[in-house]
């Protein structure tokens, strides 16, 4: 804050400094003429001028005040939003931990009670499954945290090839055979440009979107992956004819650990889209999502084509 104030003060004093410099030159350099100026005005004009200057100062003060107020309000808003998001995150984390922990405690109680070997075996395997679930959750959280800080590999990535591989892999996923998966890539006038980025992370992002599209649609639905070049960007879209996302959930889907109402019965950590967003933003791109309940969803990834 003080550095910014000093800077502003310097700018404000600039005209004065200019005046001083000009005056010193006019007074001291013999070759420069320093004529005496006379100004004449009637009292009415002087009063008018005086009033105008006063108003100018007052106006400038007001504008300044309004700008700082607005800036302060924005900062306060952002802070409130961050606090709110953090609160929701903690709440969701609490929820995500509670269920497996409850299951583990119940499983352990069954183990301690002297029951038959089949009950014990069942308890053991359910405890193990829940522990693995917690491990996956922490691993995903770590991924997300690391994505924001780890250095990004910037190598030429052939997106067409990446999309083909991701679709091939998604086709192997259980449930994929009951859905129609199509990939539409431009051939004319030229194929997709190469982007600079981290193949693995971009693959992870695209695969996550495909995985979601398959998980959250019904058998018989269509999943379409398409990519086009648009100016200095490549647009990748993953669209589906699934049940869609309710209007009131749309804003939240990118948040960490958010799980929509309809996602409750489907396995997942609620970190997939957050990861997608983190990857795309690290590449200087943006993500957006449109959905209509009952019709389907399309996720749009916009990646800059950075020339080397």
């Amino acid at each position, binding site marked *: 804050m003080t550095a910014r104030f000093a800077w502003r003060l310097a700018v404000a004093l600039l005209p004065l400094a200019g005046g001083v410099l000009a005056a010193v030159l006019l007074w001291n350099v013999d070759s420069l003429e320093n004529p005496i100026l006379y100004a004449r005005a009637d009292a009415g004009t002087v009063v008018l001028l005086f009033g105008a200057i006063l108003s100018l100062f007052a106006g400038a003060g007001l504008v300044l005040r309004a700008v700082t107020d607005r800036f302060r309000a924005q900062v306060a808003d952002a802070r409130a939003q961050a606090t709110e998001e953090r609160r929701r995150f903690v709440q969701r984390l609490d929820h995500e931990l509670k269920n497996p922990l409850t299951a583990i405690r119940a499983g352990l109680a069954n183990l301690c009670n002297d029951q038959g070997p089949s009950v014990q075996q069942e308890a053991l395997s359910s405890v193990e499954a829940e522990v693995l679930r917690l491990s996956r959750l922490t691993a995903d959280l770590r*991924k997300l945290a690391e994505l924001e800080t780890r250095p990004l590999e910037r190598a030429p990535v052939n997106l067409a090839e990446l999309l083909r591989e*991701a679709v091939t892999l998604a086709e192997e996923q259980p449930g994929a055979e009951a859905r129609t998966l199509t990939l539409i890539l431009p051939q004319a006038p030229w194929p997709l440009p190469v982007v600079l980025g981290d*193949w693995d992370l971009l693959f992870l992002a695209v695969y996550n979107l495909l995985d979601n599209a398959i998980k959250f649609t019904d058998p018989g639905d269509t999943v379409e992956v398409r990519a086009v070049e648009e100016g200095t960007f490549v647009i990748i879209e993953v669209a589906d004819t699934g049940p869609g996302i309710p209007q009131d959930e749309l804003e939240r889907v990118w948040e960490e650990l958010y799980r929509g109402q309809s996602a409750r019965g489907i396995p997942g950590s609620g970190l997939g889209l957050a990861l997608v967003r983190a990857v795309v933003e690290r590449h200087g791109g943006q993500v957006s999502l449109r959905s209509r309940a009952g019709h389907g969803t399309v996720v749009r990834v916009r990646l800059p084509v950075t020339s080397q």
Partner: protein
Amino acid sequence: MVDRPKILLVDDEKAITANLRPFLERSGFEVDTAADGEEALAKIRTFDPDLLVLDVLMPRLDGREVLRRLRRADDWTPVILLTQVGESTERAMALEEGADDYLNKPFDPHELVARIRAVMRRARPGQPPLASAEQLVSGALRLDRRSRRAYMGAEELHLTPKAAALLEYLMTHPDELLSRERLLDVVWGWDYPAGTRTVDTRVAEIRRALDEDPSDPLYIETVPGQGYRFIGLVEAGR
């Protein structure tokens, strides 16, 4: 009875040492535990372990400092670091400071046992491990670890940073069967669906750079259905 290898397990979390100790004992090791770095240094003198499993984050003296002190005193007892942070810089640092291997928490205890056995097999008593060598040499292949550059003879190989990291790990673990999951964890710090395929892509990249025939390899062998193994003889270079 044959002498059982002695392991000193150092972690400030009692729950971890209390559960790992019997597991390691059942796996054929003699185990002692320490709750922090200072206790670890004291126990090293009295217990004289064959290998240390060392947690990084501990009160008083952390694992990294214990490792540093040991190596400075020219003590090359094999060390496996238990890291919490998955960042690649953190892991690179672990190796640079003379750890023989590392494992990310939370881990599968079977994986720890596998790692202990592999490190013990590789260890050369009283000598620095390959993991702390600045240069690794295998035939005409030379890897400078500081700059992460690989050379074949005098010619530099063009490898992406991840392929170089993968080659480095393979060369510091010669003759060891490394699963794709393990390699993925090493180079990326985390696992993800389809990740194992990524390992294949990177291995293919290394092989192209080495001009190696996968069906008759000099350096990297594919173990079908299991992973990869560096089969070249690796020595520390100067």
